[in-house]
């Protein structure tokens, strides 16, 4: 019961922060709120027994994302230029989509239900057999590195591709600057 109350309270905080992010014009403040949002969701993951996810979210989601967003802000603009009031078509689209999804939740298994379909498929095998088959006490690690190793390999490929893309986008910049500077220098000399 205690956990449920903590869970409900933390989720309520998340809602408040999300609304604040929508309304605030200062992008620096919005980025900071997003960091708090990530940290709060990490606490929610702890209450929902996902400790590995919690510390990944706290370090990668709250840490690295915030740093990336702040460095982007330092290269661009800090204040969002205002647009007049809420725009009705997006609100309508979001409301309709949201209501459809809420309608769909009535078919979902209830929170914490041990008989939910998700707990009947491969998960029992992981929990029962991984101690013998993989011999690592943390089941999440066994699944991540062994049973679903190809997934993790795919993830590594995605991260590598993203790194290459960022380097291509931002790495070439200095070269161009140098070239244009050189051109200017040459132009000035001639």
């Amino acid at each position, binding site marked *: 019961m205690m956990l449920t109350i903590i869970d409900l309270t933390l989720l309520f905080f998340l809602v408040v922060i999300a609304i604040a992010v929508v309304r605030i014009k200062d992008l620096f403040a919005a980025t900071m709120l997003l960091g708090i949002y*990530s940290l709060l969701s990490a606490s929610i993951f702890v209450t929902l027994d996902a400790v590995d996810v919690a510390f990944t979210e706290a370090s990668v989601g709250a840490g690295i994302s915030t740093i990336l967003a702040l460095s982007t802000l330092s290269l661009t603009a800090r204040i969002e230029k205002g647009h007049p009031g809420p725009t009705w078509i997006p609100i309508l689209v979001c409301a309709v989509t949201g209501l459809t999804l809420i309608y769909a939740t009535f078919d979902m298994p209830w929170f914490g239900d041990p008989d939910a379909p998700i707990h009947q498929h491969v998960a029992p095998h992981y929990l029962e057999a991984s101690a013998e088959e993989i011999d690592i006490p943390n089941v999440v690690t066994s699944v991540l590195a062994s049973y679903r190793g190809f997934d993790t390999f795919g993830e590594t490929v995605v991260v590598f591709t993203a790194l290459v893309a960022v380097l291509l986008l931002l790495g070439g910049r200095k070269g161009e600057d140098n070239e244009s500077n050189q051109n200017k220098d040459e132009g000035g000399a001639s």
Partner: protein
Amino acid sequence: MIDEIIGLYNYWVVIFLMMTGFYVVIASTNLVKKIIGLNIFQTSVFILYITMGKVADGTAPILEEGITSYSNPLPHVLILTAIVVGVATTAVGLALVVRIKEAYDTIEEDEIHDQDDSL
């Protein structure tokens, strides 16, 4: 009734957060703000998955003697992958924003359209 509310509350909050992020993505004209909205959306999906993996009275899926009920480890694995991939895509998006700022000298979508006469 109260049981139903507690049983589905997590999903409803997740849907609200998801739609908030979606609203920021489609209604905001600032490109950095759009990416912030995308992050809100993304984190709400993570909470959806982890909520489904929770078993009442279960504990974290780390094998220990004397414990019989564990939460489902599979969503945790999927979301670990998703968090890292999410940060990678955020990095690419923000790098694109930096380049757009250099090319157009603005990160407001409507001003970019004005410069291009594309809308």
